[in-house]
């Protein structure tokens, strides 16, 4: 089996030849050590590189780098975010900062600060009041080169690797545009008309992006809105049903109609809302945050309907543990969730700057050591 076949089998709840692996590596240190050279594919390095060229050129180069990293660590997927799809000549706007920090505004109007380890930290959004949204313009989907990063990934590895186009249900973009999650929550109660309009327009835009990605050949659509925290759903049942579920249905129905897969990422404890998301048609739930969700329970409760992915703890084990701890964690995840198929190995969020390189190497090694299904000879 190649990577694409392996992922498809797992998402269809079949047994592949070995447990597939999907992850997002944001740690520049780990990327550098994998590539044995200085990597350039973080958002802020892209911004630094756009001076002599532009973000389009930088992102096109980043696709190659991310594929090289995926191949080097035996990852079966290549994930490309909608935010990496920029038109030819596009440059991130660099905002002035009295403290000399690098602050940028992306094409959607979200403002980020360069955080620890060169990773992006959310800072603000450009919709300061509901009226601002009346004049808001989404980036042009037909702009020249807008989806060239997707085309490039499909051209380079579309036959062998599982390519995932990552978008949002709409929730994340909405709170990022209005300046924070708490502000959007206030709008749910104080100005529900505006909140719905904002969410629905973003969702409609995301659906259009997903359609284009699928037309260009991605194998799955991925959503990355966090819908829960460690103490449960971020929403009351009423708010979730009224504001969030229509977004879920709209995107999921579009993806399912085209026979594609929907992989949903959300941190937090989703026990209260996962049944609804499964009923809506998601194919895979990632990352089963180990602090609040038990992989074995999830396998027993949901494993006959969806694939599960994740649970290798990047909040504790990959950060503070030893390589031995990491190997045992990977082994535990495989033992609990891989039997019978329907499991995709992954960290419990991403391989970020806090993760130890030695532990990541141990994770990759353990995948090869414990991850093979019973052989057919």
């Amino acid at each position, binding site marked *: 089996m190649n990577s694409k076949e392996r992922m498809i089998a797992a998402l269809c*709840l079949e047994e592949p030849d070995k447990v597939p692996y999907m992850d997002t590596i944001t740690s520049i240190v780990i990327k550098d050590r994998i590539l044995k050279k200085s990597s350039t594919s973080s958002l802020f390095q892209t911004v630094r590189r756009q001076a002599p060229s532009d973000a389009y050129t930088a992102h096109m180069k980043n696709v190659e780098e991310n594929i090289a990293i995926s191949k080097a660590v035996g990852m079966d997927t290549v994930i490309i975010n909608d935010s990496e799809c920029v038109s030819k000549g596009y440059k991130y706007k660099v905002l002035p900062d009295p403290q000399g920090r690098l602050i940028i505004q992306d094409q959607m109007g979200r403002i980020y600060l360069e955080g620890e380890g060169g990773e992006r930290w959310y800072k603000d959004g450009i919709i300061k009041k509901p009226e601002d949204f009346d004049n808001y313009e989404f980036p042009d989907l037909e702009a020249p080169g807008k989806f060239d990063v997707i085309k490039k990934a499909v051209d380079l590895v579309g036959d062998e690797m599982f390519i995932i186009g990552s978008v949002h249900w709409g929730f994340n973009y909405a709170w990022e545009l209005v300046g924070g999650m708490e502000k959007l929550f206030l709008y749910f109660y104080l100005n529900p008309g505006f909140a719905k309009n904002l969410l629905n327009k973003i969702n409609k835009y995301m659906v259009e992006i997903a359609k284009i990605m699928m037309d260009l050949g991605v194998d799955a659509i991925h959503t990355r809105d966090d819908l829960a925290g460690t103490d449960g759903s971020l929403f009351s049942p009423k708010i979730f049903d009224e504001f969030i579920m229509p977004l879920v249905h709209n995107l999921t129905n579009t993806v399912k109609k085209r026979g594609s897969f929907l992989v949903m990422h959300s941190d937090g404890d989703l026990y209260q809302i996962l049944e609804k998301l499964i009923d809506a048609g998601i194919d895979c739930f990632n990352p089963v945050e180990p602090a609040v969700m038990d992989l074995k329970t999830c396998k027993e409760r949901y494993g006959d309907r969806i694939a599960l992915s994740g649970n290798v703890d990047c909040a504790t084990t990959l950060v503070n543990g030893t390589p031995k701890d990491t190997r045992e964690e990977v082994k535990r995840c495989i*033992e609990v969730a891989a*039997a*019978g*198929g*329907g499991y995709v190995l992954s960290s419990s969020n991403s391989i970020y700057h806090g993760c130890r390189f030695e532990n990541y190497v141990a994770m990759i090694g353990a995948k090869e050591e*414990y991850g093979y299904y*019973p052989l*057919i000879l």
Partner: protein
Amino acid sequence: MKSLSVLRGIVVEVKKLGEDRLIQGKRWEKVIYTVKLVQFSKRESRMKMSEDLKGKEVKVLRFAHDDWHYKTGVSRTLTVEETEAVLKGTPTETVFW
């Protein structure tokens, strides 16, 4: 076009055959899984299993190594070729009854 749809079932018994093979430095043990057929994979939702196949027990030959390979009560997937053999009623080296 050849169907990719495969049959899935639940492992009800694992029988060790006492035959080992060394593969890439690891010792893999020949086993026969008794698999109670349940359904086709969700890959092809139009494929419905016929009533006479539901609950049919087939023996599936594999090589096992890790502890989790010996679990019962978990799903096991037949290959495309094994699925075709079951549907045709023609046993093969790796699937029989």
